[in-house]
């Protein structure tokens, strides 16, 4: 049987890993999406609202 300290450590470590993983996943997703948008704009693709001169 593990010591009580080990159970506490495992709980905090698992929480830290899970939340950090979630954060990194969301950050990487955001970077990839912004890169795609920049590439499309560089190719001259415009959103309809922008092409029509709208601000939205």
């Amino acid at each position: 049987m593990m010591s009580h300290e080990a159970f506490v450590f495992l709980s905090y470590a698992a929480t830290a890993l899970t939340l950090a993983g979630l954060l990194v996943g969301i950050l990487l997703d955001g970077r990839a999406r912004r890169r795609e948008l920049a590439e499309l704009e560089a190719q001259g693709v415009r959103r309809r609202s922008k092409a029509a001169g709208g601000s939205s």
Partner: protein
Amino acid sequence: MSDTTISQGWFTSLANPTRFLALSGRILPYLATAAVLSLVVGLYMSFAAPEDYQQGITVRIMFIHVPAAWLAMMCYSVMAVASLGTLVWRHPLADVAAKTALPIGAAFTFLSLLTGSLWGRPMWGTWWVWDARLTSVFVLFLMYLGLMALHKAMDDPARAARPAAVLTLVGFVNIPIIKFSVDWWNTLHQPASVIRMDGPTIHPTMLYPLLVMAIAYTLIFFTLHLMAMRNEIWRRRVQTMRRQAAQSIGGGAST
């Protein structure tokens, strides 16, 4: 102009994704800073709290287990409100909010199950029992995974929005079941000790770290959720622009 008109106007203005991106971009740095600060304070208080006379040092697990369980339920409630937004008001961002809350809610539910298990082994003598509280939270975890699978199964987010919203609202029946399971049935899991009619039954030396950690978890949730919503708006924008580009190549004849 009545207050309703003003608040409705503000709420409707958020329906414009560009305005939402600008506003959330301004709010995010403050929200993230508040989340980190409260987490640091909460962690300090958690480890400065005295050991419990029965649980010993394992009471520290409670400071991350209880907020994770609360957030697991709060996240689903946010999704239920967002689903109403999809079905009743057809708010364009409601589906974005409901969809992006899913992995975050699943993570908090997973953490509440895992840390509960890691506390149960030394304190109860078992990793798991199929009592009403543990089982209903496990069902919540399965519902998060099921809804994520539903979104993954459909290429067009607009087609997934309504069935996912209906399913989310049907699943909301599980939230009061989780909350009251410890009162309605005989469970190994202890009954509520913070949110109860006659006030908390925990000593302030343990209640305050728990509440600060709950605030930190809530701020972490909203920070991650806003970030994920922005990603989803960009993802849908990319999808639309690619479709437009493909249509213009095809002479714009296809509809």
